[in-house]
């Protein structure tokens, strides 16, 4: 106890401190003391309600096993990512003698090998005048890109997760026929006016200078605009969203468009088993 501390105390505090210092040291019951000492020396002190359970001795592993474990976990993670990804885009067919620009590289539409080599998930594709392109995501869907289409391909859909993929349509028309591999997932085609969420269907999304049009031949597709969720497109109908901001309109699919979509459906019959 320092003098300074002592000097700072008032009378009551000082007396209290003296009382504390004058407390006798309690002496233990000799029997308790002797018993505890014997138990301590023998290592036989019983556990009480205060006791923590004795920790089980930890198994010691060599340090290298941690690195091997980490490496195995990394390999497993990479393998899982690889296994999860369904195949990427493959060229089914090209039509016309124009050009197709993929990621800025202009390619001849009648040279499927070069187009096949250039295709990749997320590729930016511009289909020239007089050409069209059918792109297959094996098992999941076929996308038919009409002439004048400017579109970014979706990424690879996942087998167990990342089942929702998105493609951006800047201009032109993309028709989609979904396959059994998309069950439980979806493909969203986004334009400036609308997002079309495609679950399992034969659908066409078209964008020109005036409108975005979503035509549903069969199945299920949901349309959302910036202002509202228009909901499911009725079978055989199309939602027309105007670029000038006019209210969307629900119309019947034009007969010529029906024929176009039936053509895609027929082409896909050899690719997917029809339901």
């Amino acid at each position: 106890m320092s003098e300074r501390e002592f000097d700072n105390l008032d009378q009551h505090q000082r007396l209290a401190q003296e009382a504390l210092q004058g407390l006798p040291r309690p002496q233990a019951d000799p029997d308790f003391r002797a018993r505890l000492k014997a138990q301590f020396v023998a290592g036989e002190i019983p556990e009480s309600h205060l006791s923590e359970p004795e920790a089980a001795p930890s198994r010691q592993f060599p340090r290298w096993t941690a690195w091997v474990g980490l490496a195995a976990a990394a390999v497993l993670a990479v393998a899982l990512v690889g296994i999860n990804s369904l195949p990427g885009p493959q060229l089914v067919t090209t039509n016309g003698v124009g050009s197709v620009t993929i990621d800025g590289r202009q390619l001849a539409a009648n040279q499927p090998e070069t187009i096949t080599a250039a295709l990749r998930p997320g590729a930016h594709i511009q289909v020239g005048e007089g050409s069209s392109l059918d792109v297959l995501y094996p098992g999941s869907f076929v996308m038919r890109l009409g002439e004048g289409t400017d579109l970014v391909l979706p990424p690879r859909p996942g087998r167990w997760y990342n089942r929702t993929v998105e493609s951006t349509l800047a201009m032109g028309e993309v028709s989609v026929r979904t396959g059994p591999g998309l069950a439980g997932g979806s493909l969203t085609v986004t334009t400036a006016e609308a997002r079309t969420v495609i679950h399992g269907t034969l659908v066409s999304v078209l964008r020109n200078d005036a409108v975005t049009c979503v035509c549903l031949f069969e199945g299920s597709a949901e349309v959302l605009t910036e202002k509202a969720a228009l909901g499911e497109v009725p079978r055989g109908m199309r939602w027309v969203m105007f670029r000038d901001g006019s209210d969307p309109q629900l119309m019947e699919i034009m007969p010529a468009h029906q024929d176009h979509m039936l053509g895609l459906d027929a082409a896909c019959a050899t690719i997917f088993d029809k339901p």
Partner: protein
Amino acid sequence: MTQASPSPDRHPHPPLPAAVLIGARDGDPTALGKLFEACFDDIFGLAVRMLGDRTQAEDVVQEVFLRLHRSAATLDVSRDPRPWLRTLTANLCRDHWRSFGAKVNRGSVPVDEDPAQGQPLVHPGPTPEAETLAGQRADRVQAAIDQLPDDLREVVVLRGYQDLAHDEIAEMVGASPAAVRKRYSRALGALGELLKDIWP
């Protein structure tokens, strides 16, 4: 049998010979016995003063030595284990205060009137009158300590009774030395208020 030494020496801590610690670490019974003797009184006194109850203090002391024995094989023979044991004791006492049973029983069995012991804590002094007075005074002081809030009681026992330095207490209770000083000052004030009628 319960006794109290009339003039407490709170620093009966000659350095523990390294041979004792090494022997205890290696499980030598003689060394373990010496280690026990070197630590027991200090730990028991602290537990009794913090808890105000001998039975509970015995439980705590038993637990402290159980943990010491479990840790003996990994003892750092270059360091005195007693500060660690005091911290362990204080922690166990704090756990006890927080337990439901302690809140229910608080103050029900004054330390120096424990019927199980059958006699007062304080050993008789030179004369019957003096010993009675000394015993009554110790009882009052302990009863006053027991009435303090937990945080004040802890500091007042560690500082005022055990005479530990503020820094050491601060480390034990997880507070700054300045906070410990303030707490101790408040504790002394509260204790002085509780005991004012016994001053001459």
